């Protein structure tokens, strides 16, 4: 059933699973992503619908001329966009809260207090204190590179730091705060009293760091972090090797929850001098045969390497729907299908998940490189013209080449081949994922719940006593 390569990969993966399922951080991350999912599904759906159907230059807005027969379209789009701002674009803060909460539980701390203090710390770190608190616009600092869940690493980092700081302070405090001698002395107030010292320390440290960040002039902690890893402008030369390396670097950042330099929604790749020179020549001569720049970020990465968002996520979603045997994965796949067709990959990042998930990190990095190679070869040899005309940034990725060349069939064929190549990269990993799931069910692989119980004395989310058919979730 499995090829030798798949067998080797499966063995490695199952080993990794047995190790990481015992790690507190990994357990807390999986729970965080799980609890984040409803907000991400709702927010991502709203984003995809509003940007493609109700906003100018959206795919459906344009092709069905929606603005002409639905004058209220843009107002509807703005309302939906605002709603998506407070769901999905809030995930940095939500991530800090949930991660600290689950981590606190594994350390047997008060999860409510720790979660909330982590969220406050994350908010303080995003605020420019020097500009005056009245000028705070938390929303604007969250939409770096398309917002969404793409900067959740920052939230997780703050959550981790806040939890550990809280834990340390609580330990110090326990030496001079007298724990109640008997249970009769303990009231609901006791734990609140004990939390005053650690909470104030965490908040004070956050305010101090935030002041230092304000001095740098960057857009909060997230802005500073992104600034410090940003590549210099000269690095973006339009040579195929550079394109591959920068795409790889970008996707490495993605899988740990940071936004890299590239995104289907950034204009960086579209607005290059090379692109505009290509466009001028194409408009003048009316043909795509003698364009000055065949290989650019736009003609290779945008068109063949980012179908469904970074990492060829559309290929993953289709592959999951076709091949995955896990009901949860398939359901997430169906939810993710429409947003991914419109190039929003947030549901896939959080739902399968791709973030911090060793099984999908490898193909996420590999698939765009393979697809870009498939797209680059005919471009290089001149069999297929490069994309020159402006297209929609929402809309199915495999149509971009066809539309951007004004209907070149060879370009359509190439992008279908590139898509299939991406799909093939994902297939073996989905089969291994199926195997791991089956082994967990049969008990060959320890379940995460067992490990949680060993760590904290209880399962974070209690398992059902019996395979229940219908029972309300207590969480």
């Amino acid at each position: 059933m499995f090829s030798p390569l798949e067998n080797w990969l499966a063995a490695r993966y199952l080993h990794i699973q047995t190790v990481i399922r015992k790690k507190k951080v990994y357990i807390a991350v999986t729970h965080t992503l799980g609890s984040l999912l409803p907000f991400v599904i709702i927010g991502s759906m709203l984003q995809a619908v509003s940007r493609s159907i109700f906003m100018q230059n959206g795919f459906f807005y344009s092709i069905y001329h929606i603005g002409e027969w639905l004058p209220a379209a843009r107002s509807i789009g703005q309302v939906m966009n605002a709603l998506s701002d407070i769901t999905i674009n809030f995930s940095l803060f939500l991530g800090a809260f949930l991660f600290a909460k689950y981590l606190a539980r594994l350390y047997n701390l008060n999860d409510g207090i720790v979660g909330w203090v982590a969220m406050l710390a994350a908010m303080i770190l995003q605020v420019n204190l020097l500009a005056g608190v009245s000028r705070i616009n938390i929303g604007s600092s969250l939409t770096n590179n398309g917002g969404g869940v793409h900067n959740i690493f920052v939230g997780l980092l703050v959550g981790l730091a806040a939890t550990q700081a809280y834990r340390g302070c609580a330990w110090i405090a326990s030496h001079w705060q007298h724990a109640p001698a008997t249970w009769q002395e303990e009231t609901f107030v006791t734990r609140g009293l004990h939390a005053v010292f650690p909470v104030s320390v965490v908040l004070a440290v956050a305010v101090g760091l935030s002041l230092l960040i304000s001095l740098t002039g960057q857009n909060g902690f997230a802005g500073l972090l992104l600034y410090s890893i940003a590549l210099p402008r000269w690095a973006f030369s339009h040579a195929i090797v550079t394109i591959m390396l920068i795409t790889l670097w970008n996707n490495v950042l993605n899988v740990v929850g940071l936004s890299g330099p590239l995104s289907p929604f950034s204009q960086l790749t579209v607005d290059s001098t090379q692109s505009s020179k290509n466009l001028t020549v194409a408009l003048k001569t009316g043909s795509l045969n003698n364009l000055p720049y065949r290989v650019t970020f736009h003609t290779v990465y945008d068109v063949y390497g980012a179908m469904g968002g970074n990492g060829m996520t559309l290929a993953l979603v289709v592959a999951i729907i076709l091949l995955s045997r896990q009901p949860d994965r398939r359901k997430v796949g169906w939810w993710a299908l429409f947003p991914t067709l419109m190039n929003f990959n947030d549901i896939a990042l959080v739902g399968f998940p791709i973030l911090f998930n060793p099984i999908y990190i490898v193909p996420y990095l590999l698939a765009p490189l393979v697809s870009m190679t498939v797209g680059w070869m005919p471009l290089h040899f001149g069999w297929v013209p490069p994309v020159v005309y402006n297209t929609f940034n929402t809309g199915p990725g495999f149509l971009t080449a066809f539309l951007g060349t004004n209907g070149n069939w060879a370009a359509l064929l190439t992008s279908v081949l590139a898509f299939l190549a991406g799909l093939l990269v994902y297939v073996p990993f989905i089969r291994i994922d199926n195997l791991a799931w089956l082994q967990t069910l049969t008990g060959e692989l320890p379940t995460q719940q067992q490990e949680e119980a060993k760590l904290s004395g209880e399962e974070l989310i209690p398992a059902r006593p019996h395979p229940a058919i219908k029972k309300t979730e207590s969480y």
Partner: protein
Amino acid sequence: MAKNLSPQDRTRLLKRPSRIKRIAGVLVGLILLVIISIPAYDYQKGVVANARVIHNSRMAPVIFIPGSSATQNRFDSLIKELNSRSTGHSYLKLTVHTDDSITTTGGVKAGDNEPFIVVGFENNKDGYANIKKQARWFSIAMKFLQNRYRFNNFVGIGHSNGGLIYTLYLEEYLNQDDLTINKLMTIGTPYNLSEKNIANRTEILSDMIKLKSSLPKNIQMWSIAGTENYSDDGIVPVESVEAGKYVYQDQVRQYTLINVTGSDSQHSDLPQNQEIVGYIQQYMLTNPNQNRLGGNRGNPTQPSSSSSSSKK
């Protein structure tokens, strides 16, 4: 957690959907794809064809708006003057009616890159409410012209209230992604209506100032004031013309105020004033001596700047 899976459980869990289901799913997916691909392809064809026409059209018309109570024929003598040394600039006149319909006289000859176009209004009455309506009618006329002649940049000249219509149009209607205004000249335009005291800002002036940030940043702008005596051109106080600086200065690339005195500097004569004709030729026209028939029959006209005082 179920620990011991029976072989039946295993096969049930690993069961794939039936073949018919899978084939049906793929078919439905392909049909949906075709349904969205065809209009997308259609739309893109249209966009590219349009982009080609616009890119390859070098037309930049000069578009005139007359003042209140004047018709589309207001600029006839000015245009006769401008065309006196050449026959090159074609002359098109539009009237926008109160029901948004448009009638035209004259036309643009093929290959003319700098035609003169006058946009007049059936309702050409004075007053802020009417000027607002006229700005909207002007935007309709511009859409009509753009659709017919496919230009993406133009030069504007407004006489009297025509300058106010231009300002309102630029602030509220112009889509800067679509159309660029290179230069604008307003002649005797009362930015503060008939108010002499600059401290008393009329409603229209304060509205224009409120929206000034939406003016295109790249305009070169000339505002010409006529002065018969020391205070006005017979109708418009010079302070009212000067009030234009509160709208345009530091908003657009260049704002120049020019004072014209001497003969023909009465408000209604301004469009025929030789000074002003000279300024239009010098500043506004790319090819003042354009001659469709070939050969240059006239000499370049230099404006006589004897009796004018200009400040920048």
